[in-house]
């Protein structure tokens, strides 16, 4: 198959670039090694849209962070993914930290961050009563927000797909051959000719660059652990609560999530050698984030956690790499996109798309017809009764609750399975409509979700997987034989 632009990596960066490219008359293909989008860092992070006072002025991070932050509100409305501009606090617990908060404020001004304010400890507690008495003051950034990182990724990708971008999931790039003009990209399933390759492979960006003969990229991996709390604690804090950054990163945060839970984390553990890619949670990590979270909110409950998880930050040096590779014409590097990568993604995508078009020799010619909006999946939980009744009238399947904890109906699950990039797995359904994401973690709805997947995909019930191939829920039938 021949394509103008081939994007490697279906994280938020690849998906956002795919969406930007879908505006243009260029043929674009995205290849993702995992069975679903957002399976790397994009699926396991804090879900914060940072205001932009953290990065050093003049860096790519500073530029794209502030720009990206300003794009999310509109994107979330057009593409229908969970986002809330709830604002963030950077808390100071001492005079020294107040000085630091002041410095962040100044840096924010330099970076062009709007709507910042330094507030007193009392004012902060007034706005969020769960905060510690020890808080002396805070930097309040009103433009910060929370977003569902995987739903945003899926939304970008689906919008791109509707506008003509092709997606290949569960397909791993094994070789990239630079040809006279363009590349021959080999995967475990096919080969592709592409005029331009975009390296958005996250923690595998170094390997992809090496395959293509591009610049040396040594990715550093740092694991961050989280604890996710029941949605009945979703209102425990109403703003993103950062502590002052220290040598270990941005410190432990306590935040509401865009889907209505409360999230605690992350710590930061360097992964070396065999440890790379490790997303196991640890007793030390869970204890650490709880201990440090209690500094922010002394009443932070020990109970009420519904799951723990970890993500891996892939970074390179102290800034993003967003450039046309100097050694290999046609190779666009979008690598080392650690925090604030999620925030920056929509802004990075705008520039990276233009770089890719140029590298592919395509004109910056926009399509006449471009669908700007994504309908997405209706959220029955957040609807009033009138809206619910209306929806049920159109389709009775929206009247049958499958996931009781998150109020997800059969209609939503079927819609997820009929989406532009359908993923017929338990986790795929979960990431798209939240069935199984709640307090019982799928203990009740898993068999029903499997039943619906079977009906929609034709995959037999006993072969339906949690995630990738080989992760079927069933390992056989009863002695009495097949169902």
């Amino acid at each position, binding site marked *: 198959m021949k394509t103008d632009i081939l994007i490697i990596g279906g994280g938020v960066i690849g998906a956002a670039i795919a969406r930007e490219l879908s505006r243009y008359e260029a043929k674009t293909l995205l290849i993702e090694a995992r069975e679903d989008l957002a399976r790397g860092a994009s699926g396991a992070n804090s879900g914060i849209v940072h205001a932009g006072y953290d990065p050093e002025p003049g860096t790519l991070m500073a530029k794209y962070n502030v720009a990206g932050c300003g794009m999310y509100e509109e994107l979330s409305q057009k593409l229908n993914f969970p986002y809330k501009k709830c604002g963030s606090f950077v808390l100071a617990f001492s005079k020294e930290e107040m000085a630091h908060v002041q410095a962040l404020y100044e840096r924010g001004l330099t970076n062009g961050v709007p709507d910042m304010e330094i507030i007193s400890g009392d004012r902060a507690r007034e706005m969020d009563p769960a905060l510690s008495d020890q808080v002396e003051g805070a930097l309040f950034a009103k433009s910060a927000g929370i977003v569902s990182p995987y739903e945003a990724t899926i939304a970008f990708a689906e919008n791109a797909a509707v506008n003509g971008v092709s997606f290949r999931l569960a397909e791993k790039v094994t070789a990239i051959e630079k040809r006279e003009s363009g590349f021959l990209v080999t995967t475990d399933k096919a080969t592709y000719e592409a005029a331009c390759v975009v390296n958005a492979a996250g923690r595998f960006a170094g390997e992809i660059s090496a395959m293509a003969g591009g610049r040396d990229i040594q990715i550093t991996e740092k694991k961050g652990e989280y604890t996710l709390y029941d949605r009945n604690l979703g209102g425990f804090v109403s703003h993103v609560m950062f502590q002052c950054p220290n040598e270990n990163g941005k410190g432990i945060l306590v935040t509401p999530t865009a889907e209505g839970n409360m999230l605690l984390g992350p710590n930061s553990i360097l992964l070396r050698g065999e440890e790379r890619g490790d997303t196991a949670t640890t007793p030390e990590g869970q204890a650490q984030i709880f201990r440090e979270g209690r500094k922010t909110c002394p009443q932070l409950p020990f109970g009420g956690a519904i799951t723990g998880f970890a993500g891996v930050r892939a970074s390179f040096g102290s800034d993003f790499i967003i450039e046309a590779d100097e050694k290999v014409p046609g190779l666009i590097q979008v690598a080392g996109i650690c925090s604030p990568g999620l925030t920056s993604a929509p802004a990075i995508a705008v520039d990276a798309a233009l770089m890719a078009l140029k590298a592919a020799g395509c004109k910056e010619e926009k399509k006449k017809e471009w669908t700007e909006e994504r309908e997405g999946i209706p959220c029955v939980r957040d609807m009033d009764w009138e809206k619910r009744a209306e929806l049920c009238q159109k389709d009775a399947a929206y009247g049958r609750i499958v996931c009781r904890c998150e109020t997800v109906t059969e209609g939503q699950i079927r819609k997820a399975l009929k989406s532009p990039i359908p993923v017929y797995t338990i986790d795929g359904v979960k990431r798209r409509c939240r069935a199984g994401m709640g307090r019982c973690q799928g203990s009740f709805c898993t068999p029903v979700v499997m039943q619906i997947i079977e009906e929609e995909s034709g995959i037999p019930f006993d072969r339906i997987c949690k995630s990738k191939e080989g992760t079927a829920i069933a390992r056989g039938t*009863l*002695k*009495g*034989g*097949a*169902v």
Partner: protein
Amino acid sequence: MEYTCILCPRGCHLTAEKVMEEGKKTIKVSGNFCPRGIRYATEEMTMPMRTVTTSLYVEGGDMKMVSMKTAAPVPKERIPQVLEAAAKAQAKAPLKVGDAILKNVAETGTDLIATRNVAAARG
């Protein structure tokens, strides 16, 4: 011998011993709250009995599986044979609680019966 009675949730801790009473061999049970404990301990010493419960694919039903049990307890040592026979049984909807699915399962003298109503599939 010591046993935990399984005949009710109370789970009495039973002690049973073989004794000679009036010149006859008999089993003496203590620790039981009710007379069933005596029966249970006596059986445990001679021939332990268990009710077997399982489930089976049902053809043409409004649900996939029908649950079943042995109508009476069967000898514990015969459980593997009972399970094997149960797995090979065939069930067809409609079924009512108590319907025999397999007569004299594994030669135990006991029937395997349905423990759930299964209506015929609609359409």
